[in-house]
């Protein structure tokens, strides 16, 4: 029992032709599923209103974004992170972001009303949006809005973020919250934006020990990634016993991603998604929402999210990609697309520092466990 959420107006959140955060990624997923003869019948969300966003964001911040999105000039824009390389001001961006936030929020409502156990929201995932700061391609924090909807109804929620960047916005919004555990696996802030997500960021006050961060070494491979998942996420879920999980499934930890340096393959992603679905079955009564997120390799990201769709819907994963789809999209994006859904091995050159990286990541498991053990009793 899984619901898909999508609205064509998500595309209004378009930051420009050459911007990496490109709506074409989801169009490619939908078209691929169509070509594979899977009928996608999504629930269509209403957009959230600007007022609904005041729960997460400062009123002033929301009002300025809405005005900018209508084409008005606002001198405060740069202070709020807008009009920058990452967050250019485009017409309709606020409406697009509100549709996407509406989608993630609808996911939360469907879980709360017991209409489904699993949700795949084919959008959202704006984890860098702060209460009064646009950052890293994000303006409205749909994830925080959905989490808040659930915690307001008394649920305990685990937010799991596998995007390659630290989920600084979501973490900060819930840093003191004892109903929300956030877990972020990311490439270390020593090397990657936003420069936070260290293991000592454990939460404050009632939220202490409920915010976990795993800053992985660059060039971390699938095996080590999965080891870290078992070493950190599983014990955390077992202890916290959430009522629901929300997963930000950014696809930018893929080896071909142009913005980051982790080395996951599509096969690794399949294992990761299966593992997360199993975690939900074992520890959150099967209740789980997936959103999309980062993922800037335009040939890999649609394949990864298609795999996510097929797994969550319990459908067979085909070996080959439909030729019609390949032809159409390789022309449109101007890039070669190989004939297979999964990556072909060997995907990349062997990494000389492999064992050192594994050791570093294993050390993280130990250090994180050591720092939470005094709280998890």
């Amino acid at each position, binding site marked *: 029992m899984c619901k898909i959420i999508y609205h064509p107006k998500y595309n209004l959140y378009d930051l420009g032709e050459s911007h*990496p955060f490109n709506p074409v990624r989801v169009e490619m997923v939908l078209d691929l599923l169509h070509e594979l003869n899977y009928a996608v019948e999504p629930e269509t969300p209403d957009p959230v209103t600007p007022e609904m966003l005041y729960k997460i964001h400062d009123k002033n911040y929301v009002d300025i974004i809405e005005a900018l999105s209508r084409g008005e000039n606002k001198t405060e824009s740069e202070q709020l992170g807008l009009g*920058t390389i990452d967050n250019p001001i485009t017409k309709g961006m606020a409406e697009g972001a509100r549709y996407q936030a509406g989608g993630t929020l609808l996911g939360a409502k469907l879980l709360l009303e017991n209409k489904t156990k699993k949700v795949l929201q084919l959008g959202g995932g704006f984890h860098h949006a702060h209460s009064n700061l646009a950052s890293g391609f994000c303006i409205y924090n749909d994830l925080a809005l959905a989490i808040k909807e659930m915690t307001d109804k008394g649920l305990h929620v685990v937010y799991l973020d596998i995007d390659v960047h630290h989920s600084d916005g979501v973490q900060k919004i819930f840093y003191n919250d004892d109903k929300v555990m956030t877990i972020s696996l990311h490439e270390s802030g*020593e090397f*990657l*934006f936003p*420069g*936070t997500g260290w293991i*000592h960021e454990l939460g404050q006050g009632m939220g202490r020990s409920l915010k976990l961060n795993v800053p992985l070494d660059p060039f971390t491979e699938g095996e080590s990634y999965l080891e870290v998942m078992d070493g950190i996420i599983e014990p955390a879920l077992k202890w916290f016993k959430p009522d629901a999980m929300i997963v930000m499934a950014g696809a930018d930890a893929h080896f071909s991603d142009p*913005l980051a340096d982790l080395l996951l393959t599509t096969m690794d992603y399949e294992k990761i998604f299966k593992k997360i679905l199993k975690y939900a079955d074992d520890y959150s009564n099967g209740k789980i929402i997936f959103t999309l997120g980062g993922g800037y390799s335009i040939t890999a990201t649609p394949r990864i999210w298609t795999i996510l769709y097929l797994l969550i819907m319990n459908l067979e994963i085909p070996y080959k990609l439909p030729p019609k789809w390949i032809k159409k999209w390789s022309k449109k994006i101007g890039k070669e697309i190989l004939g297979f859904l999964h990556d072909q091995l060997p995907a990349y050159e062997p990494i000389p520092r492999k064992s050192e990286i594994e050791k570093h990541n294993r050390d993280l498991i130990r250090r994180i466990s050591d720092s939470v053990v005094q709280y998890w009793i």
Partner: protein
Amino acid sequence: MLISEVMKKNPVTVNFDIKLNEAYKLMQDKKIRHLPVLKEEKLIGVVTDRDLRLATSKLSEHPFDPETEVEKVMSHPVSTTSPNDPVERATQVMRELKIGCLPVVEEMKLVGIVTNTDLLDALLMLTGVHQPSGRLDVRLPNKTGELARLTGLLSEQKVNIHSILTYPDKDGKVRLVLRLGSIEMKMLAELICNAGFEVIWPVHIACVK
């Protein structure tokens, strides 16, 4: 900048069963304030001059006897850092936990200690991490206009510079620690490299001449 560059190597340590008065004398002799405490070679705590003074103060309701073992008054569990950690991270830990030192541990072995004094020394050459940002270290010729050329490039790309710290580098060059408000650091690093500057960090996208 890493902890290994600022830490004191081979720190003076004490065994868990050393007496308070002995630890006090040791601190006086060595002119130090922090002593990592070991038990069977394993780090189990830190005893500070403040721990000793508070524990034995006559103002205390139940002062400890000077013959007490340090294990009874030491701070624990102990937070540690590793030689490859950047100094800003250790600073954040010490700030958050309100402590004055971190033992430095590598492969379960104590290899050094870093105190707030060491970090103050490092401060001039460091940058903060308070805003979401990517960090680039860039080397520039120590020449009029070079920094302007670099920041001009960033401005053209609509990149907000959150912080720049500079310190002199070898061969008459200047080293910059830049914190930029952008997720697209690889692209920016390439741009800066192509303009003839040297990008030194992150190492895997560096272009050192």
